[in-house]
């Protein structure tokens, strides 16, 4: 995460968000499949978006995935040496492909 923050200091035109595509590997480890091209529904505004197009904020201790339409939190993931903590309360649902991890 430090690398992105270093960039932000270099270039004020760059903000702290990236597309959730960037954390596709971590999401695959959590959900068991690549979900970047899968739809998920924001529990707040009910917009359905491809997970890879959601916004990710990487400055905190974990990863926060937000709805691209209303900016509310959809997913929160924190990795510790012992476990991965996943908060999915901001999502109504998420489609997890059964196979073909490469979409």
């Amino acid at each position: 995460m430090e690398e992105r923050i270093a960039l932000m200091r270099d270039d004020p035109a760059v903000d702290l968000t990236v597309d959730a595509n960037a954390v596709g590997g971590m999401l695959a480890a959590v959900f068991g499949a690549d979900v970047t091209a899968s739809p998920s529904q924001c529990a707040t505004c009910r917009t359905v978006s491809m997970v890879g197009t959601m916004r990710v904020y990487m400055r905190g201790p974990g990863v926060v995935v937000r709805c691209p339409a209303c900016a509310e939190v959809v997913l929160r993931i924190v990795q510790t040496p012992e476990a991965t903590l996943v908060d999915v309360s901001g999502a109504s649902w998420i489609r997890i492909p059964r196979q073909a991890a490469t979409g």
Partner: protein
Amino acid sequence: MAIGWQLATVGSIHDETPTVRTFTLGLPGWSGHRPGQHLDLRLTAEDGYSVERSYSIASEPERPGEVDITVERIEGGEISPFLHEVVVPGDRLEVRGPIGGYFVWEAALGGPLLLVAGGSGVVPLMAMVRHRARSAPSVPTRLLFSSRTFDEIIYRDELDGLASARNGFEVLHTLTRGQPPGWTGYSRRIDEAMLAEALEPLGAEARAYACGPTALVEVVANGLVRLGLPPDRVRTERFGPTGT
């Protein structure tokens, strides 16, 4: 199918610009990738501390068993200085991937193709350009590429070479922080007028892929939709300088 970690062996290393370097990773168990996808790299210290970063794949899928990643050195970063200063051919690194099913272009999707890159945002687009050259050289393709200075243009010679084939691949450069004498390209940040000129020969049937810092990607995505491209044909990837 879960994506597991596998060991890559570093092959050749070469400099693209003074701060950007390409690493060829040998991956005997690689399942193959689609142009635009990325991989995760994990480094683990002796005390067990580990750090992961996501890097776009620069190479075309036609090269079995190996991939290239192109990495910009970020001062104060945890991985990129290590890659630039410590890693030598023969070293082994942990890799997970390929990842990403959204920001992908393959020959079967056809064209015309408008690719728009800011800085190292060119990396996943280069995988598409190389794939096109190998498998779909008739697809009309234009790359609009914003760099800060001439010396910071990543893949400059290779792009010139591909464009010189005159088979429908063109590169439009813009330099935002200084131009060499006699520069004939653009000399400003990408704006809607520039996008209109880049898009015009391709027409409203084009597929567009834009990758770079968030501010650039927003300008490109909004501009292309205003110019008439359907939103579902404008694919974007916003990211920092080190990969996705």
